[in-house]
Protein backbone atom coordinates (compact mmCIF):
# COMPACT_ATOMS: atom_id res chain seq x y z
CA UNK A 1 0.00 0.00 0.00
CA UNK A 2 2.58 2.44 1.15
CA UNK A 3 4.98 1.54 -1.66
CA UNK A 4 2.38 2.03 -4.37
CA UNK A 5 1.41 5.38 -2.84
CA UNK A 6 5.02 6.45 -3.02
CA UNK A 7 5.22 5.37 -6.65
CA UNK A 8 2.07 7.30 -7.40
CA UNK A 9 3.48 10.39 -5.70
CA UNK A 10 6.68 10.06 -7.62
CA UNK A 11 4.97 9.69 -10.96
CA UNK A 12 2.78 12.69 -10.12
CA UNK A 13 5.92 14.71 -9.51
CA UNK A 14 7.36 13.45 -12.76
CA UNK A 15 4.25 14.44 -14.64
CA UNK A 16 4.46 17.89 -13.07
CA UNK A 17 8.05 18.35 -14.22
CA UNK A 18 7.20 16.95 -17.61
CA UNK A 19 4.25 19.34 -17.93
CA UNK A 20 6.46 22.21 -16.92
CA UNK A 21 9.01 21.26 -19.57
CA UNK A 22 6.28 20.89 -22.16
CA UNK A 23 4.86 24.30 -21.27
CA UNK A 24 8.30 25.81 -21.51
CA UNK A 25 8.92 24.25 -24.91
CA UNK A 26 5.51 25.46 -26.08
CA UNK A 27 6.36 28.93 -24.86
CA UNK A 28 9.72 28.73 -26.61
CA UNK A 29 7.97 27.67 -29.78
CA UNK A 30 5.42 30.44 -29.45
CA UNK A 31 8.14 33.06 -29.00
CA UNK A 32 10.72 31.62 -31.38
CA UNK A 33 10.32 34.42 -33.89
CA UNK A 34 10.61 37.07 -31.22
CA UNK A 35 13.72 35.40 -29.84
CA UNK A 36 15.14 35.20 -33.33
CA UNK A 37 14.60 38.94 -33.73
CA UNK A 38 16.96 39.66 -30.85
CA UNK A 39 19.74 37.71 -32.51
CA UNK A 40 21.51 40.49 -34.51
CA UNK A 41 21.62 42.80 -31.50
CA UNK A 42 22.75 40.04 -29.14
CA UNK A 43 25.48 38.99 -31.58
CA UNK A 44 26.66 42.58 -31.98
CA UNK A 45 26.93 43.13 -28.23
CA UNK A 46 28.79 39.85 -27.97
CA UNK A 47 31.43 40.99 -30.44
CA UNK A 48 31.59 44.64 -29.46
CA UNK A 49 31.34 44.26 -25.67
CA UNK A 50 31.71 40.70 -24.42
CA UNK A 51 34.71 39.53 -26.45
CA UNK A 52 36.69 42.62 -25.34
CA UNK A 53 35.75 41.79 -21.73
CA UNK A 54 37.48 38.48 -22.22
CA UNK A 55 40.42 40.54 -23.39
CA UNK A 56 41.12 41.53 -19.81
CA UNK A 57 43.62 38.64 -19.83
CA UNK A 58 45.77 40.84 -22.08
CA UNK A 59 46.73 42.85 -19.02
CA UNK A 60 48.35 39.73 -17.57
CA UNK A 61 50.28 38.87 -20.71
CA UNK A 62 53.48 39.88 -22.43
CA UNK A 63 51.67 40.59 -25.68
CA UNK A 64 53.30 40.24 -29.06
CA UNK A 65 51.54 40.47 -32.39
CA UNK A 66 52.98 37.22 -33.74
CA UNK A 67 51.51 35.02 -30.98
CA UNK A 68 48.27 36.96 -30.52
CA UNK A 69 46.15 37.13 -27.38
CA UNK A 70 46.22 33.42 -26.60
CA UNK A 71 49.75 32.53 -27.67
CA UNK A 72 51.57 35.33 -25.88
CA UNK A 73 53.29 34.30 -22.64
CA UNK A 74 51.79 35.11 -19.25
CA UNK A 75 53.48 37.82 -17.25
CA UNK A 76 51.53 37.87 -14.01
CA UNK A 77 51.18 41.34 -12.54
CA UNK A 78 54.24 42.75 -14.35
CA UNK A 79 52.18 45.12 -16.48
CA UNK A 80 50.48 46.54 -13.40
CA UNK A 81 53.79 46.83 -11.54
CA UNK A 82 55.29 48.67 -14.48
CA UNK A 83 52.28 50.97 -14.73
CA UNK A 84 52.10 51.86 -11.05
CA UNK A 85 55.85 52.33 -10.72
CA UNK A 86 55.81 54.91 -13.51
CA UNK A 87 55.15 58.55 -12.59
CA UNK A 88 52.36 58.55 -15.19
CA UNK A 89 50.04 56.45 -13.02
CA UNK A 90 49.82 59.19 -10.42
CA UNK A 91 49.46 62.02 -12.95
CA UNK A 92 46.70 60.40 -14.99
CA UNK A 93 44.75 59.31 -11.91
CA UNK A 94 45.04 62.74 -10.32
CA UNK A 95 44.04 64.50 -13.55
CA UNK A 96 41.10 62.21 -14.29
CA UNK A 97 39.64 62.39 -10.78
CA UNK A 98 40.51 66.05 -10.22
CA UNK A 99 38.88 67.26 -13.42
CA UNK A 100 35.83 65.10 -12.83
CA UNK A 101 35.27 66.46 -9.31
CA UNK A 102 35.38 70.04 -10.60
CA UNK A 103 33.22 69.18 -13.65
CA UNK A 104 30.56 67.42 -11.59
CA UNK A 105 30.28 70.16 -8.99
CA UNK A 106 30.52 73.19 -11.29
CA UNK A 107 28.24 71.78 -13.99
CA UNK A 108 25.63 70.77 -11.42
CA UNK A 109 25.53 74.22 -9.82
CA UNK A 110 25.46 76.09 -13.15
CA UNK A 111 22.89 73.75 -14.70
CA UNK A 112 20.56 73.95 -11.69
CA UNK A 113 20.84 77.73 -11.66
CA UNK A 114 20.05 77.87 -15.38
CA UNK A 115 17.13 75.45 -15.02
CA UNK A 116 15.63 77.42 -12.12
CA UNK A 117 15.95 80.68 -14.03
CA UNK A 118 14.52 79.39 -17.30
CA UNK A 119 11.52 78.17 -15.33
CA UNK A 120 10.86 81.81 -14.38
CA UNK A 121 10.47 82.90 -18.00
CA UNK A 122 6.79 83.16 -18.79
CA UNK A 123 6.93 83.57 -22.58
CA UNK A 124 7.28 80.10 -24.06
CA UNK A 125 8.77 81.27 -27.35
CA UNK A 126 11.53 83.20 -25.58
CA UNK A 127 12.28 80.27 -23.30
CA UNK A 128 12.53 77.93 -26.29
CA UNK A 129 14.83 80.33 -28.06
CA UNK A 130 17.26 80.52 -25.14
CA UNK A 131 17.22 76.74 -24.78
CA UNK A 132 18.06 76.08 -28.40
CA UNK A 133 20.86 78.66 -28.25
CA UNK A 134 22.65 77.24 -25.22
CA UNK A 135 22.18 73.70 -26.47
CA UNK A 136 24.11 74.48 -29.64
CA UNK A 137 27.56 73.72 -28.13
CA UNK A 138 26.33 70.26 -27.23
CA UNK A 139 25.69 69.12 -30.80
CA UNK A 140 29.04 70.04 -32.34
CA UNK A 141 31.94 67.61 -32.31
CA UNK A 142 35.08 68.02 -30.20
CA UNK A 143 37.02 68.69 -33.41
CA UNK A 144 34.95 71.82 -33.95
CA UNK A 145 35.42 72.73 -30.28
CA UNK A 146 39.18 72.39 -30.77
CA UNK A 147 38.97 74.88 -33.67
CA UNK A 148 36.91 77.27 -31.57
CA UNK A 149 39.37 77.09 -28.67
CA UNK A 150 42.26 77.57 -31.09
CA UNK A 151 40.69 80.76 -32.39
CA UNK A 152 40.80 82.13 -28.85
CA UNK A 153 44.18 80.79 -27.70
CA UNK A 154 46.38 80.77 -30.78
CA UNK A 155 49.64 82.49 -29.82
CA UNK A 156 50.04 85.02 -32.65
CA UNK A 157 46.52 85.93 -33.67
CA UNK A 158 44.21 84.38 -31.05
CA UNK A 159 41.52 86.65 -29.70
CA UNK A 160 42.66 86.43 -26.08
CA UNK A 161 46.28 87.35 -26.72
CA UNK A 162 45.16 90.25 -28.91
CA UNK A 163 42.83 91.50 -26.20
CA UNK A 164 45.54 91.12 -23.57
CA UNK A 165 47.79 93.21 -25.75
CA UNK A 166 45.21 95.84 -26.61
CA UNK A 167 43.43 96.39 -23.29
CA UNK A 168 45.83 95.27 -20.60
CA UNK A 169 49.11 95.89 -22.40
CA UNK A 170 50.27 92.40 -21.39
CA UNK A 171 52.68 90.07 -23.17
CA UNK A 172 51.21 87.33 -25.33
CA UNK A 173 50.84 83.98 -23.58
CA UNK A 174 51.95 80.78 -25.29
CA UNK A 175 48.79 78.90 -24.34
CA UNK A 176 49.69 75.72 -26.17
CA UNK A 177 53.00 75.29 -24.39
CA UNK A 178 52.15 76.31 -20.82
CA UNK A 179 50.49 73.46 -18.98
CA UNK A 180 49.49 75.55 -15.96
CA UNK A 181 46.64 77.32 -17.80
CA UNK A 182 44.93 74.18 -19.04
CA UNK A 183 42.96 73.24 -15.94
CA UNK A 184 41.08 76.53 -16.36
CA UNK A 185 40.73 76.18 -20.12
CA UNK A 186 39.37 72.64 -19.93
CA UNK A 187 36.95 73.42 -17.09
CA UNK A 188 35.55 76.38 -19.03
CA UNK A 189 35.30 74.41 -22.28
CA UNK A 190 33.59 71.50 -20.55
CA UNK A 191 31.06 73.78 -18.86
CA UNK A 192 30.44 75.64 -22.13
CA UNK A 193 29.69 72.36 -23.88
CA UNK A 194 27.59 70.58 -21.25
CA UNK A 195 25.82 73.02 -18.91
CA UNK A 196 23.07 73.79 -21.42
CA UNK A 197 22.34 70.12 -21.95
CA UNK A 198 22.23 69.31 -18.22
CA UNK A 199 20.05 72.30 -17.49
CA UNK A 200 17.47 71.07 -20.00
CA UNK A 201 17.30 67.73 -18.17
CA UNK A 202 16.77 69.51 -14.84
CA UNK A 203 14.30 71.91 -16.42
CA UNK A 204 12.26 68.95 -17.68
CA UNK A 205 12.12 67.64 -14.12
CA UNK A 206 11.03 71.05 -12.82
CA UNK A 207 8.18 71.33 -15.34
CA UNK A 208 6.91 67.99 -14.07
CA UNK A 209 6.25 69.42 -10.59
CA UNK A 210 2.58 69.92 -9.78
CA UNK A 211 1.70 73.64 -9.95
CA UNK A 212 -0.55 73.31 -6.89
CA UNK A 213 2.48 73.19 -4.59
CA UNK A 214 3.49 76.65 -5.75
CA UNK A 215 -0.04 78.04 -5.50
CA UNK A 216 -0.35 76.79 -1.92
CA UNK A 217 3.08 78.19 -1.08
CA UNK A 218 2.19 81.59 -2.55
CA UNK A 219 -1.00 81.72 -0.47
CA UNK A 220 1.07 80.88 2.60
CA UNK A 221 3.26 83.84 1.74
CA UNK A 222 6.41 82.00 0.63
CA UNK A 223 8.60 84.07 -1.65
CA UNK A 224 10.35 82.89 -4.82
CA UNK A 225 13.54 81.96 -3.02
CA UNK A 226 11.72 79.87 -0.41
CA UNK A 227 9.72 78.16 -3.14
CA UNK A 228 12.92 77.25 -4.97
CA UNK A 229 14.70 75.87 -1.92
CA UNK A 230 11.73 74.26 -0.20
CA UNK A 231 9.69 72.94 -3.16
CA UNK A 232 11.62 72.81 -6.42
CA UNK A 233 14.95 71.47 -5.20
CA UNK A 234 13.57 68.73 -2.90
CA UNK A 235 11.17 67.56 -5.59
CA UNK A 236 13.80 67.24 -8.30
CA UNK A 237 16.27 65.66 -5.87
CA UNK A 238 15.79 62.17 -7.40
CA UNK A 239 16.89 63.44 -10.82
CA UNK A 240 19.84 65.27 -9.27
CA UNK A 241 20.81 62.11 -7.38
CA UNK A 242 20.63 59.90 -10.47
CA UNK A 243 22.60 62.29 -12.65
CA UNK A 244 25.26 62.88 -10.01
CA UNK A 245 25.44 59.18 -9.22
CA UNK A 246 26.15 58.43 -12.87
CA UNK A 247 28.87 61.08 -13.00
CA UNK A 248 30.49 59.98 -9.74
CA UNK A 249 30.66 56.37 -10.85
CA UNK A 250 32.36 57.57 -14.01
CA UNK A 251 34.97 59.50 -12.05
CA UNK A 252 37.81 57.41 -13.51
CA UNK A 253 36.54 57.92 -17.05
CA UNK A 254 37.22 60.97 -19.14
CA UNK A 255 36.00 62.52 -22.36
CA UNK A 256 38.73 61.48 -24.78
CA UNK A 257 37.85 64.23 -27.24
CA UNK A 258 38.09 66.97 -24.63
CA UNK A 259 41.53 65.91 -23.43
CA UNK A 260 42.93 64.87 -26.81
CA UNK A 261 41.45 67.21 -29.41
CA UNK A 262 41.13 70.46 -27.47
CA UNK A 263 44.82 70.61 -26.34
CA UNK A 264 45.63 69.48 -29.92
CA UNK A 265 47.55 66.43 -28.66
CA UNK A 266 50.40 68.63 -27.45
CA UNK A 267 53.25 66.93 -25.57
CA UNK A 268 54.12 70.03 -23.54
CA UNK A 269 50.67 70.06 -21.95
CA UNK A 270 50.60 66.43 -20.83
CA UNK A 271 51.14 67.15 -17.12
CA UNK A 272 47.71 68.77 -16.91
CA UNK A 273 45.89 67.22 -19.87
CA UNK A 274 46.82 63.54 -19.72
CA UNK A 275 44.01 61.36 -18.39
CA UNK A 276 43.61 57.59 -18.19
CA UNK A 277 41.88 57.48 -21.58
CA UNK A 278 44.45 59.55 -23.44
CA UNK A 279 47.23 57.64 -21.69
CA UNK A 280 45.81 54.29 -22.81
CA UNK A 281 45.53 55.55 -26.37
CA UNK A 282 49.10 56.84 -26.47
CA UNK A 283 50.57 53.80 -24.72
CA UNK A 284 48.86 51.55 -27.23
CA UNK A 285 49.29 53.36 -30.53
CA UNK A 286 52.40 55.47 -29.98
CA UNK A 287 54.44 53.19 -27.71
CA UNK A 288 52.84 49.95 -28.88
CA UNK A 289 52.74 48.75 -25.27
CA UNK A 290 49.66 46.53 -25.40
CA UNK A 291 50.24 44.96 -21.98
CA UNK A 292 50.56 48.15 -19.99
CA UNK A 293 47.82 50.00 -21.84
CA UNK A 294 45.36 47.18 -21.22
CA UNK A 295 46.45 47.09 -17.59
CA UNK A 296 45.57 50.78 -17.34
CA UNK A 297 42.23 50.10 -19.04
CA UNK A 298 41.41 47.27 -16.63
CA UNK A 299 42.37 49.42 -13.64
CA UNK A 300 39.87 52.00 -14.93
CA UNK A 301 37.10 49.49 -15.70
CA UNK A 302 37.28 47.58 -12.42
CA UNK A 303 37.33 50.60 -10.18
CA UNK A 304 34.48 52.12 -12.20
CA UNK A 305 32.42 48.97 -11.75
CA UNK A 306 33.07 48.96 -8.01
CA UNK A 307 32.17 52.65 -7.80
CA UNK A 308 28.86 52.27 -9.59
CA UNK A 309 27.90 49.28 -7.45
CA UNK A 310 28.88 51.14 -4.27
CA UNK A 311 27.12 54.35 -5.29
CA UNK A 312 23.97 52.45 -6.17
CA UNK A 313 24.08 50.53 -2.89
CA UNK A 314 24.47 53.77 -0.95
CA UNK A 315 21.44 55.28 -2.65
CA UNK A 316 19.39 52.13 -2.05
CA UNK A 317 20.10 52.48 1.66
CA UNK A 318 18.72 56.02 1.68
CA UNK A 319 15.87 55.75 -0.80
CA UNK A 320 15.18 52.63 -2.78
CA UNK A 321 13.28 54.42 -5.53
CA UNK A 322 16.19 56.64 -6.52
CA UNK A 323 18.53 53.71 -7.14
CA UNK A 324 19.57 52.94 -10.69
CA UNK A 325 19.09 49.20 -10.39
Amino acid at each position, binding site marked *: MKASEAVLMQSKAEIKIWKKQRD*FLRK*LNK*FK*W*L*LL*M*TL*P*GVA*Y*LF*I*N*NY*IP*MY*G*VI*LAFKQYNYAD*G*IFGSPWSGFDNFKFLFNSPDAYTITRNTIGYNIVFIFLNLVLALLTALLIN*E*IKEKVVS*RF*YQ*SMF*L*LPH*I*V*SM*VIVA*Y*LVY*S*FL*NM*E*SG*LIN*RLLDKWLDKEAIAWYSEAKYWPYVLVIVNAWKHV*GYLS*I*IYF*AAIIGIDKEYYEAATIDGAGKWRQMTRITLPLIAP*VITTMTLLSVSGILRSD*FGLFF*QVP*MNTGALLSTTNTI*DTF*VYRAMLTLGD*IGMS*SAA*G*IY*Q*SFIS*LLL*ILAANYAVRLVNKQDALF
Partner: protein
Amino acid sequence: MLTKQKLDQFGIHTFFTLFTIGSLLPFVLIFMVSISDESSISANGYSLLPTSISFAAYRFLLYDFTEIARAYGVTILCTIIGVMVSLFNTTLLAYPLSRMELPFRRSLSFYIFFTMLFSGGMVPWYLTFVNLVPVKNTLLAMIIPGMLLSAFNVLLMRSFFSHSIPDSVVEAGIMDGASEFQVFQKIIVPLSLPIMATIGLFTTLAYWNDWYNCLLFIDSPALYNVQYLMTKTLTNIQFLLMRADSSAQAGELLAKMPRETVRMALAIVGIAPLLFAYPFFQKFYISGITSGAVKG
Protein backbone atom coordinates in the same frame (compact mmCIF):
# COMPACT_ATOMS: atom_id res chain seq x y z
CA MET B 1 6.12 94.63 -5.77
CA LEU B 2 5.58 95.07 -9.47
CA THR B 3 8.88 96.86 -9.92
CA LYS B 4 10.71 94.07 -8.09
CA GLN B 5 9.14 91.54 -10.42
CA LYS B 6 10.18 93.58 -13.43
CA LEU B 7 13.69 93.87 -12.04
CA ASP B 8 13.80 90.09 -11.60
CA GLN B 9 12.67 89.54 -15.18
CA PHE B 10 15.27 92.02 -16.38
CA GLY B 11 17.97 90.17 -14.46
CA ILE B 12 16.88 86.81 -15.87
CA HIS B 13 16.84 88.07 -19.44
CA THR B 14 20.26 89.63 -18.99
CA PHE B 15 21.57 86.29 -17.73
CA PHE B 16 20.20 84.42 -20.72
CA THR B 17 21.29 87.05 -23.22
CA LEU B 18 24.83 86.70 -21.92
CA PHE B 19 24.53 82.90 -21.97
CA THR B 20 23.32 83.01 -25.59
CA ILE B 21 26.14 85.33 -26.61
CA GLY B 22 28.62 83.06 -24.85
CA SER B 23 27.30 80.03 -26.73
CA LEU B 24 27.36 81.72 -30.14
CA LEU B 25 30.43 83.96 -29.89
CA PRO B 26 33.05 81.30 -30.74
CA PHE B 27 31.14 80.35 -33.91
CA VAL B 28 30.82 83.98 -34.94
CA LEU B 29 34.54 84.46 -34.33
CA ILE B 30 35.66 81.64 -36.61
CA PHE B 31 33.21 82.79 -39.26
CA MET B 32 34.60 86.31 -39.11
CA VAL B 33 38.15 84.99 -39.32
CA SER B 34 37.23 82.88 -42.33
CA ILE B 35 36.03 85.95 -44.25
CA SER B 36 38.86 88.21 -43.10
CA ASP B 37 41.62 89.39 -45.34
CA GLU B 38 44.90 87.62 -44.58
CA SER B 39 46.70 90.93 -44.20
CA SER B 40 44.16 92.20 -41.69
CA ILE B 41 44.83 89.07 -39.61
CA SER B 42 48.55 89.58 -39.56
CA ALA B 43 47.98 93.19 -38.50
CA ASN B 44 45.18 92.78 -35.94
CA GLY B 45 44.90 89.06 -35.26
CA TYR B 46 41.56 87.27 -35.14
CA SER B 47 38.86 89.83 -34.73
CA LEU B 48 35.07 89.85 -34.49
CA LEU B 49 35.09 92.91 -36.74
CA PRO B 50 37.63 92.38 -39.52
CA THR B 51 38.97 95.54 -41.09
CA SER B 52 38.76 94.18 -44.60
CA ILE B 53 36.71 91.30 -45.91
CA SER B 54 37.95 88.70 -48.37
CA PHE B 55 36.69 85.35 -49.57
CA ALA B 56 40.14 84.19 -50.62
CA ALA B 57 40.01 81.31 -48.14
CA TYR B 58 36.80 79.91 -49.61
CA ARG B 59 38.13 80.41 -53.12
CA PHE B 60 41.21 78.45 -52.15
CA LEU B 61 39.07 75.62 -50.79
CA LEU B 62 36.88 75.62 -53.90
CA TYR B 63 39.94 75.51 -56.12
CA ASP B 64 40.52 71.93 -55.07
CA PHE B 65 37.29 70.81 -53.53
CA THR B 66 37.68 67.11 -54.33
CA GLU B 67 39.34 66.37 -50.98
CA ILE B 68 36.52 67.91 -48.97
CA ALA B 69 33.82 66.49 -51.21
CA ARG B 70 35.25 62.99 -50.87
CA ALA B 71 35.44 63.36 -47.07
CA TYR B 72 31.83 64.48 -47.06
CA GLY B 73 30.95 61.47 -49.18
CA VAL B 74 32.50 59.16 -46.56
CA THR B 75 30.67 60.93 -43.72
CA ILE B 76 27.30 60.87 -45.49
CA LEU B 77 27.59 57.25 -46.59
CA CYS B 78 28.64 55.98 -43.16
CA THR B 79 25.96 58.06 -41.45
CA ILE B 80 23.14 56.79 -43.66
CA ILE B 81 24.12 53.12 -43.46
CA GLY B 82 25.01 53.31 -39.78
CA VAL B 83 21.77 54.99 -38.75
CA MET B 84 19.61 52.60 -40.75
CA VAL B 85 21.26 49.41 -39.52
CA SER B 86 21.44 50.74 -35.99
CA LEU B 87 17.74 51.67 -35.86
CA PHE B 88 16.80 48.32 -37.33
CA ASN B 89 18.83 46.37 -34.76
CA THR B 90 17.72 48.53 -31.84
CA THR B 91 14.05 48.04 -32.67
CA LEU B 92 14.45 44.31 -33.26
CA LEU B 93 16.11 43.91 -29.87
CA ALA B 94 13.93 46.31 -27.89
CA TYR B 95 10.51 45.07 -28.97
CA PRO B 96 10.76 41.41 -27.81
CA LEU B 97 12.16 42.64 -24.48
CA SER B 98 9.01 44.67 -23.92
CA ARG B 99 6.84 41.51 -24.12
CA MET B 100 6.41 40.38 -20.54
CA GLU B 101 6.04 36.64 -21.27
CA LEU B 102 9.16 36.37 -23.42
CA PRO B 103 11.36 33.47 -22.26
CA PHE B 104 14.79 34.57 -20.95
CA ARG B 105 13.52 38.14 -20.75
CA ARG B 106 15.35 38.95 -17.52
CA SER B 107 18.61 37.33 -18.63
CA LEU B 108 18.51 39.18 -21.94
CA SER B 109 17.87 42.49 -20.22
CA PHE B 110 20.80 41.87 -17.91
CA TYR B 111 22.98 40.87 -20.87
CA ILE B 112 22.29 44.29 -22.39
CA PHE B 113 22.46 46.27 -19.17
CA PHE B 114 25.77 44.76 -18.09
CA THR B 115 27.52 46.27 -21.13
CA MET B 116 26.77 49.67 -19.57
CA LEU B 117 28.39 48.69 -16.27
CA PHE B 118 31.61 47.07 -17.35
CA SER B 119 33.90 47.14 -20.35
CA GLY B 120 37.12 45.38 -21.16
CA GLY B 121 38.73 48.69 -22.01
CA MET B 122 39.84 50.25 -25.25
CA VAL B 123 42.80 47.98 -26.01
CA PRO B 124 41.05 44.58 -26.27
CA TRP B 125 38.16 46.32 -28.03
CA TYR B 126 40.57 47.78 -30.58
CA LEU B 127 42.31 44.42 -31.09
CA THR B 128 38.94 42.69 -31.56
CA PHE B 129 38.20 44.97 -34.48
CA VAL B 130 41.68 44.64 -35.92
CA ASN B 131 42.12 40.88 -35.65
CA LEU B 132 38.78 39.16 -35.21
CA VAL B 133 36.54 41.40 -37.32
CA PRO B 134 39.01 42.96 -39.71
CA VAL B 135 37.56 46.39 -40.34
CA LYS B 136 40.82 48.35 -40.29
CA ASN B 137 41.15 50.68 -43.27
CA THR B 138 37.66 49.97 -44.56
CA LEU B 139 34.51 52.07 -44.46
CA LEU B 140 33.06 49.51 -42.04
CA ALA B 141 35.46 50.82 -39.38
CA MET B 142 33.40 54.01 -39.26
CA ILE B 143 30.11 52.11 -39.07
CA ILE B 144 30.51 49.04 -36.88
CA PRO B 145 32.84 49.47 -33.88
CA GLY B 146 31.11 50.88 -30.83
CA MET B 147 28.34 52.73 -32.62
CA LEU B 148 26.03 50.22 -34.24
CA LEU B 149 23.97 49.53 -31.14
CA SER B 150 23.69 51.47 -27.91
CA ALA B 151 22.48 49.56 -24.86
CA PHE B 152 21.04 52.77 -23.52
CA ASN B 153 18.94 53.28 -26.65
CA VAL B 154 17.68 49.70 -26.51
CA LEU B 155 16.52 50.16 -22.92
CA LEU B 156 15.02 53.54 -23.80
CA MET B 157 13.03 52.02 -26.65
CA ARG B 158 12.01 49.02 -24.56
CA SER B 159 10.46 51.28 -21.94
CA PHE B 160 8.70 53.21 -24.71
CA PHE B 161 7.17 49.98 -25.98
CA SER B 162 6.08 48.78 -22.55
CA HIS B 163 4.60 52.15 -21.60
CA SER B 164 2.91 53.31 -24.77
CA ILE B 165 1.84 50.17 -26.60
CA PRO B 166 -0.79 48.28 -24.59
CA ASP B 167 -0.53 44.47 -24.53
CA SER B 168 -4.11 44.26 -25.75
CA VAL B 169 -3.06 45.71 -29.12
CA VAL B 170 -0.58 42.90 -29.66
CA GLU B 171 -3.00 40.25 -28.36
CA ALA B 172 -5.76 41.46 -30.65
CA GLY B 173 -3.39 41.19 -33.58
CA ILE B 174 -2.42 37.62 -32.67
CA MET B 175 -6.11 36.67 -32.14
CA ASP B 176 -6.87 37.90 -35.63
CA GLY B 177 -4.38 35.38 -36.92
CA ALA B 178 -1.43 37.67 -37.56
CA SER B 179 2.05 36.22 -37.07
CA GLU B 180 4.51 37.87 -34.69
CA PHE B 181 6.32 39.34 -37.68
CA GLN B 182 3.12 40.80 -39.09
CA VAL B 183 2.25 42.30 -35.71
CA PHE B 184 5.71 43.82 -35.53
CA GLN B 185 5.64 45.15 -39.05
CA LYS B 186 2.04 46.35 -39.25
CA ILE B 187 1.36 47.50 -35.69
CA ILE B 188 4.54 48.03 -33.71
CA VAL B 189 6.72 49.81 -36.24
CA PRO B 190 4.10 52.41 -37.23
CA LEU B 191 3.29 53.09 -33.56
CA SER B 192 6.93 53.50 -32.64
CA LEU B 193 7.82 56.12 -35.24
CA PRO B 194 8.24 58.91 -32.64
CA ILE B 195 10.82 57.00 -30.56
CA MET B 196 12.54 55.82 -33.74
CA ALA B 197 12.83 59.42 -34.90
CA THR B 198 14.32 60.49 -31.56
CA ILE B 199 16.87 57.68 -31.44
CA GLY B 200 17.54 58.15 -35.16
CA LEU B 201 18.41 61.79 -34.56
CA PHE B 202 20.81 60.97 -31.71
CA THR B 203 22.44 58.25 -33.79
CA THR B 204 22.73 60.54 -36.82
CA LEU B 205 24.56 63.12 -34.71
CA ALA B 206 26.86 60.44 -33.29
CA TYR B 207 27.84 59.19 -36.76
CA TRP B 208 28.09 62.66 -38.25
CA ASN B 209 30.37 63.89 -35.46
CA ASP B 210 32.53 60.79 -35.23
CA TRP B 211 36.28 61.11 -35.62
CA TYR B 212 37.36 58.60 -32.97
CA ASN B 213 36.88 55.48 -35.09
CA CYS B 214 38.59 57.21 -38.00
CA LEU B 215 41.54 58.11 -35.74
CA LEU B 216 41.86 54.52 -34.53
CA PHE B 217 41.16 52.46 -37.60
CA ILE B 218 41.89 54.50 -40.73
CA ASP B 219 45.40 55.11 -42.06
CA SER B 220 44.61 55.93 -45.65
CA PRO B 221 43.72 59.60 -46.30
CA ALA B 222 41.33 58.53 -49.07
CA LEU B 223 39.00 57.15 -46.39
CA TYR B 224 39.08 60.11 -43.97
CA ASN B 225 35.73 61.54 -43.01
CA VAL B 226 35.06 65.25 -42.59
CA GLN B 227 35.68 65.33 -38.84
CA TYR B 228 39.02 63.60 -39.15
CA LEU B 229 40.07 65.70 -42.15
CA MET B 230 39.43 68.71 -39.90
CA THR B 231 41.43 67.12 -37.07
CA LYS B 232 44.39 66.63 -39.37
CA THR B 233 44.14 70.13 -40.79
CA LEU B 234 43.97 71.80 -37.39
CA THR B 235 47.42 70.58 -36.41
CA ASN B 236 48.91 70.73 -39.87
CA ILE B 237 47.39 73.11 -42.37
CA GLN B 238 49.59 71.75 -45.14
CA PHE B 239 47.65 68.52 -44.91
CA LEU B 240 45.18 70.04 -47.38
CA LEU B 241 47.89 70.04 -50.02
CA MET B 242 48.95 66.43 -49.77
CA ARG B 243 46.98 65.43 -52.83
CA ALA B 244 48.82 67.92 -55.04
CA ASP B 245 50.32 66.18 -58.05
CA SER B 246 53.92 67.23 -57.56
CA SER B 247 56.00 68.91 -54.90
CA ALA B 248 56.38 71.90 -57.21
CA GLN B 249 52.62 72.23 -57.48
CA ALA B 250 52.29 71.78 -53.71
CA GLY B 251 54.86 74.53 -53.15
CA GLU B 252 53.01 76.85 -55.48
CA LEU B 253 49.71 76.16 -53.74
CA LEU B 254 51.30 76.61 -50.34
CA ALA B 255 52.61 80.02 -51.34
CA LYS B 256 49.14 81.04 -52.48
CA MET B 257 47.34 79.65 -49.45
CA PRO B 258 45.89 82.13 -46.97
CA ARG B 259 47.04 80.03 -44.01
CA GLU B 260 45.15 81.52 -41.09
CA THR B 261 41.85 82.04 -42.82
CA VAL B 262 41.73 78.81 -44.80
CA ARG B 263 41.79 76.79 -41.59
CA MET B 264 38.75 78.57 -40.22
CA ALA B 265 37.02 78.43 -43.61
CA LEU B 266 37.39 74.66 -43.48
CA ALA B 267 35.87 74.65 -39.98
CA ILE B 268 32.91 76.65 -41.33
CA VAL B 269 32.50 74.26 -44.26
CA GLY B 270 32.65 71.43 -41.73
CA ILE B 271 29.88 72.69 -39.44
CA ALA B 272 27.71 74.43 -42.03
CA PRO B 273 25.36 71.45 -42.67
CA LEU B 274 24.77 70.96 -38.96
CA LEU B 275 24.18 74.65 -38.30
CA PHE B 276 21.77 74.92 -41.22
CA ALA B 277 19.86 71.86 -40.11
CA TYR B 278 19.80 72.84 -36.43
CA PRO B 279 16.83 75.27 -36.57
CA PHE B 280 14.75 72.47 -38.08
CA PHE B 281 15.57 69.77 -35.58
CA GLN B 282 16.28 71.76 -32.40
CA LYS B 283 12.72 71.56 -31.08
CA PHE B 284 12.65 67.85 -31.65
CA TYR B 285 16.12 67.42 -30.18
CA ILE B 286 15.16 69.20 -26.96
CA SER B 287 12.07 67.04 -26.50
CA GLY B 288 14.21 63.98 -27.23
CA ILE B 289 16.62 64.87 -24.41
CA THR B 290 13.80 65.38 -21.96
CA SER B 291 11.99 62.16 -22.89
CA GLY B 292 15.23 60.23 -22.42
CA ALA B 293 15.92 61.90 -19.08
CA VAL B 294 12.62 61.16 -17.36
CA LYS B 295 12.27 57.58 -18.51
CA GLY B 296 10.68 55.03 -16.25
